[in-house]
């Protein structure tokens, strides 16, 4: 291996450690279990979304609707519990169904209606941003809110549901690890195993690399593509559930950054270990990278508006790593 190969393979990991070292010296209190947990918590939701969008990237597609699927799921959870006065289980099931249905529709549009993936999911994004506001005429959902017909919504978020966002497991230190972080880790392991070690994951990569070859090898290409969007939709809705549980209300103003952060994490993932392809491990590292960067900047009192800029720079650098330096992106 040449120096160049090493740079491509380990460049981003080295950069990640460098960043941690820099913040450890420059920002007081950066190195502590609480700080680490805070970083994990801050990336949990975007990480879950990023893992979902990774599935669509693997089959050579893209899903721009994940952010709005997540916020739609959040609003739906709030609506089901606060307005319809249902319990947490019903809320979770409704959210997951929304994710699966949106994924199915996305897949159908792309595979059968031949709409290009970016456009289909962009359309779906706009549709959902509007749809999620219709039931409450654009209002956020919280216990005691006044409904459009003048009645008052008396339901409330169930304790079990709120625990998804607020409960912390003991891990050496009491009350350390939030549920959302555990969810992220479990899903990351699941999707990593699925993509790397099952024949379905392998076929998805084949579909993404050479659709015709995959088809002639006997793969039901259309089904694989649709499944990828269903995975993406369901993961996004899980992200929405976690968001609702953390906020405790259906807030129409939240979740604006979800799409950008998740896509950035997945694309940064291309550069990790020189994979030059979408992969679950890379996505997780990418999400972590963004989280560390933002946490560090926050602790160093960098103004909020510099954060998007820094994220953008990191993304562009990562893409250069993937496509220009490795040369594999071209094939």
């Amino acid at each position, binding site marked *: 291996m040449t120096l160049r190969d090493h740079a491509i393979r380990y460049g981003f990991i080295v950069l990640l450690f460098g960043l941690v070292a820099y913040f450890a010296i420059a920002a007081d209190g950066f190195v502590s279990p609480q700080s680490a947990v805070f970083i994990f918590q801050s990336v949990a939701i975007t990480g879950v979304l990023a893992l979902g969008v990774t599935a669509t990237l693997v089959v050579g597609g893209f899903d721009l609707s994940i952010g709005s699927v997540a916020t739609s799921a959040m609003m739906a959870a709030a609506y089901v519990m606060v307005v319809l006065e249902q319990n947490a289980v019903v809320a979770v099931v409704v959210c997951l169904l929304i994710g699966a249905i949106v994924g199915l529709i996305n897949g159908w549009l792309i595979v059968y209606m031949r709409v290009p993936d970016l456009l289909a999911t962009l359309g779906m994004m706009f549709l959902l941003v509007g749809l999620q506001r219709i039931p409450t005429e654009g209002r956020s959902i919280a216990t005691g809110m006044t409904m459009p017909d003048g009645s008052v919504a008396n339901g409330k978020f169930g304790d079990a549901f709120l625990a998804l966002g607020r409960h912390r497991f003991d891990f050496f230190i009491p009350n350390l690890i939030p549920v959302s972080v555990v969810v992220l880790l479990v899903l990351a392991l699941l999707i990593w195993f699925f993509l790397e*070690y*099952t*024949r*379905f994951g*392998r*076929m998805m*990569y*084949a579909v*993404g*690399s*050479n659709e*015709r*070859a*995959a*088809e*002639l*090898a*006997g*793969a*039901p290409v259309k089904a694989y593509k649709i499944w990828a969007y269903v995975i993406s939709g369901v993961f996004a809705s899980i992200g929405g559930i976690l968001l609702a549980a953390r906020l405790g209300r259906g807030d129409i103003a939240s979740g604006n950054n979800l799409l950008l952060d998740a896509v950035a994490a997945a694309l940064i993932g291309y550069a990790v270990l020189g994979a030059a*392809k979408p992969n679950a491990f890379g996505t997780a590292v990418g999400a972590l990278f963004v989280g560390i960067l933002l946490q560090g900047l926050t602790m160093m009192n960098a103004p909020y508006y510099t954060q998007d800029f820094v994220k953008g720079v990191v993304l562009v650098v990562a893409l250069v790593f993937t496509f220009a330096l490795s040369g594999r992106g071209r*094939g």
Partner: protein
Amino acid sequence: MVGNAVFRVEGLRKSFGRNEVLGGISLELHSGQVTVLMGANGAGKSTLVKIISGVYERGGGTMTLADQDFAPNTPAEAIRAGVVTVHQNINDGVVADLDVATNLTLDRLSGKGVPTLFNPARVRREAKAVADRMGLAIDLKARVNDLSLADRQMVAIARALAHQPKVLILDEPTSSLSSAEADRLFALVDRLREQGVAILYISHRMSDIRRLADRIVSMRDGVISGAFDTKPLDYEGAVNAMLGRKIHLDQIVARSSAKPVLTVEGLRIGLGARPISLTLGDGEVVAITGLVGVGKTALAETLFGVRKPLTGTMTMNGKPYAPRSAGDAIAAGVFLVAKDRATSGIVSGFNIERNVSLPFLKRMSTLGVLKRRLERATARRQIEELSIVCRSEKDEMSALSGGNQQKVMVARWMAQNAALFILDEPFQGVDISARRDIAAKLRASANGRATLLFVTELDEALETADRILVMSEHTIVGEHRNAEVDLDRLLAEVAGGPLHSAA
């Protein structure tokens, strides 16, 4: 006639790296004549066309146009000098989103002395002049997108002819046209011939060639292998010069089979084509040969379930066989090494090991989880079996030579036992030693399955098959046991006409 050639090519050479593609081509085109150029894939036809049309620089030799030296540096220069080329891919010649008028005048939109502002009225006026001269009856306001392929091509040709060329090159112009559409093109070619244009017509289709040719020139391996200009034209001779045997290879010992594996009855794969019936036996290697575009790939894809036959039934080992997808075919033991490995075989993101295991992941996993050790062992065994030259089974496909890439494709499908093993142009872009290896492997392992090859090159059929079938116009027109083959009859069948040399 001879002596007044308007366009003359002499000793033209071209190499790409160490690979010589044209080894001294000499060719003459005469005014008011259609010269047909025939040649198999890789014979160097497109390189020749690209040099004449100014895309490539020539490596040596001379070209003269009306006794003047002709050395275009760009396609635009060639057109200005009066040599116009209509390329094979119709959609490369037109801009689909613009209307016909703009397309007809597209080449006047840039260059020196062109007004900056786009004047629709002027464009329409000029376009009308171009269309009238050609007798083109297409609505000038129509969008090219809405036109049929034939009309699009007419537009591309009309624009080319607006320059009043002395030489017109048509590169496989009918390859995506229906026969009615082709007739319109032929009428146009006739008109141009009367106007005194020298036409170089490149085609594989015998029906085109019979209809149009005044002369035929055959190319093979970068040289002119035959020129025919006495009427009646010797079509079989031309096909022979294009495909015929280079070297006399050792005859193989042709086997026959007693046990049928696949029986096909009344299979029709094209509108208006006669039905196909054939039987493939256990242990025999059958080659189907024929020119490009006669339906070889269509038949291969029909047997493999990715294309539906119009009518007909298939029986596999006594049971009805009607695959609806590649998955069905694979489950029934029918495997296909598809034509053109780069687009329909190789998964470039995967290494050798993963390319080999691709179709059989189901058989290599439990509950969906891959057995990676089995996968690796299979890849290693197949690398050994086909003597694939590589460092390890983890090599990327791009690191392999063309011959070794093709071996991986064959190895992929030989990893499991087939009932029927189909290979569509398995020797394309494969060097001679890899070709021998693959052919030998196919013959050595032939027992227990039926093997079916689709090849354009006769040599490839003669050196691998026990039985040779000839395809023409989407049906099978001849059958030969590969022992004492009557080459004259075979070539006549390939050429698609009645046998008129009884010798």
